[in-house]
């Protein structure tokens, strides 16, 4: 088993955590790869009965008509909790239980990973603490409440801009103090080895089902597979079983934010497109592509979607982009919002803003890129984003949006 993906990956963490990573690597081999004590059997069974898998692969008729191709939607928004995040959270919390850990910590950006972890921890009876940037607790209040409902502690992080980057740093700090009893459920294919492989393995169920379901429906492989990418767990899970199929084009859609330019002076990138605009660096335990200034200080990222708002990306995805296997594309906030409204109107599916980036890209893609059959993963549902969409649609003059005047609030409180 390789510890790196080309020149990406590795283990850049404090010494105090190294033995825990060794222990986790050992558990990953035994339980996940070798199914020791029937771990994977139990995981699959719980995904089915608690998680609601398999999720459908739906032929999207209106989108197919619009783009002149067959568009299939992998409905991860129908997983329990409303996002693909449960696949990984359930896997890791169960693994922690097999390892004899007593406590779960996690970080979250949009709140979907925190929610999934809180649900998995409640389901498996483990105490759970979630770190979340202060900015994100404010823009994702329904998810904070859902975590609390599942009896998780939610600890706001006030450092920096108070988003996912700061929440991950804080979770790593907690882990360095509590590592003997605690498992850190990292939320994406990021972090030190073995996390990128472990999370990929738990999310690979998405592409396994896509292959099987598309084969049942059409007898073929898709021409292209599209997934949004922040840290990259949805993308890696969607791509996993297609990486070796050279005939299938893989597109990772990043958040282009308001611009792909970078304000070096202020240390701010108005996007989260680390595959497109990042450079090689070391962040949160791994060598990967990172939004950073010339000194190596990590930049504040931006996206209308809290779940994509992260300055790094998974090392395996960075490697697949570098070798040309995966094509990164970026979509700006406005196009993502248009994608949000289009999917809601055309198919009756209100997607997460993360997913909306991938849907937005369909509009910009060429017929050659899409091919005759395209699969797009709906990574999550959009309930959590309604407040954001309400505010942002008004400021971005979004095509495909409904008449928004009726929702404008003059002097009223939108948060009510």
């Amino acid at each position, binding site marked *: 088993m390789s510890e790196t993906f080309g020149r990406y990956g590795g283990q850049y963490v404090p010494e105090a955590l190294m033995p825990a990573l060794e222990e986790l690597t050992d558990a990953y081999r035994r339980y996940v790869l070798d199914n020791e004590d029937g771990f994977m059997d139990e995981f699959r069974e719980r995904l089915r009965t608690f998680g609601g898998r398999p999720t459908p692969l739906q032929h999207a008729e209106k989108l197919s008509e619009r783009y002149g191709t067959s568009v299939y939607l992998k409905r991860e928004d129908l997983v329990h909790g409303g996002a693909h995040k449960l696949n990984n959270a359930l896997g890791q919390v169960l693994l922690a239980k097999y390892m004899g850990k007593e406590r779960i910590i996690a970080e979250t950006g949009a709140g979907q990973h925190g929610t999934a972890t809180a649900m998995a921890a409640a389901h498996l009876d483990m105490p759970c603490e979630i770190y979340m940037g202060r900015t994100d607790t404010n823009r994702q209040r329904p998810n904070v409440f859902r975590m609390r409902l599942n009896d998780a502690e939610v600890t706001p992080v006030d450092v*920096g801009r108070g988003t996912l980057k700061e929440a991950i740093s804080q979770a790593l700090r907690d882990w*360095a103090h509590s590592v003997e009893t605690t498992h850190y459920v990292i939320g994406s294919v990021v972090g030190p080895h073995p996390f990128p492989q472990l999370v990929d393995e738990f999310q690979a169920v998405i592409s396994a089902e896509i292959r099987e379901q598309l084969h049942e429906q059409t007898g073929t492989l898709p021409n292209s597979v599209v997934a949004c990418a922040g840290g990259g767990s949805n993308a890696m899970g969607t791509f996993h079983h297609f990486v070796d199929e050279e005939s299938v084009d893989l597109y990772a859609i990043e958040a282009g934010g308001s611009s792909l330019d970078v304000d070096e002076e202020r240390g701010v990138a108005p996007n989260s497109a680390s595959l497109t605009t990042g450079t090689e660096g*070391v962040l949160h335990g791994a060598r990967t592509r990172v939004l950073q200034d010339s000194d190596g200080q990590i930049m504040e990222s931006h996206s209308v979607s809290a779940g994509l708002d992260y300055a790094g990306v998974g090392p395996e995805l960075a490697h697949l982009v570098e070798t040309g296997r995966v094509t990164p594309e970026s979509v700006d906030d406005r196009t993502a919002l248009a994608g949000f409204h289009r999917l809601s109107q055309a198919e009756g599916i209100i997607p997460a803003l993360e997913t909306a980036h991938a849907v937005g890209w369909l509009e910009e893609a060429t017929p050659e890129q899409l091919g005759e059959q395209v699969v797009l993963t709906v990574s999550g549902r959009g309930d959590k984003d309604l407040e954001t969409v309400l505010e942002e649609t008004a400021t971005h003059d979004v095509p495909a949006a409904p008449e928004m005047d009726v929702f404008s609030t003059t002097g009223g409180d939108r948060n009510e």
Partner: protein
Amino acid sequence: MSESDITAAFEDRPAFVPYLTAGDPTFESSIEYVEALARGGADVIELGLPFSEPIAEGPTIQQAIVRSLESGMTPERFFEFVETLGVDVPLVCMTYYNLIYQYGDAEGPRPFVERAAAAGIDGLIVPDLPVEEATPLRTACDAHGVDLIFIVAPTTTDERLTPLLEHSSGYVYVQARLGVTGARSDVSDRTSYSLDRLEGSDLPAAVGFGISTGEQAGEIVAAGADGIIVGSALVDIVAEGYEDDLTTEETAERLEAKARELTTGIIEQGRPRSERL
């Protein structure tokens, strides 16, 4: 291999090794603060070069890093800082690997080490760089006579200890406990355990994490440590000075007094390393 200046600083008595974040809260005041620690008896000084994601630091040093970055600290300014300092003790740079890596070239981290050595840095501590990932930096450090100091944690297994000690030079940073706060007895128990495990190593063992008084410093050296590392307790004094709007001189005096208290604790309880070995 000849003994480094850093290792030599542990010879006569257990060493007092203070830490401050360079540039906290400003370049000029921070120079005064580091010089005050030298007057107060520092034998080796650790200087933090701030990184925006300090995953190994507690809240006190995290805030110091924010203040320093806001006042414009960069790797280049850090080297100027070291060149400006008027102190006569070995200096250790404590920073995160991404800054070293970005300063480097296609061949690796050598340009950072070269510049650091030229500025007067004697050693490096990189808390997010475990032995497994350290070979390129180790090679560059060897080429420029810079010590590379590794941290031994309470969780470090016996299997990890041998390669870790083989890669270390200067001193071994013994992390006394996992948390940033905790009972004092906890510190001495863990310390004795950690120090026992290091028997047979040629390098001095400096114990850090959670030491804040002269009395604690004395207990740690009485338990057999070759030195004590104090960070947060000193950074707290800088933070208080900043928040209470004290003059640079007032804060410098407080730091010097704290350094004297800690040094006195060591002198009262410590013995020369030659006798301790």
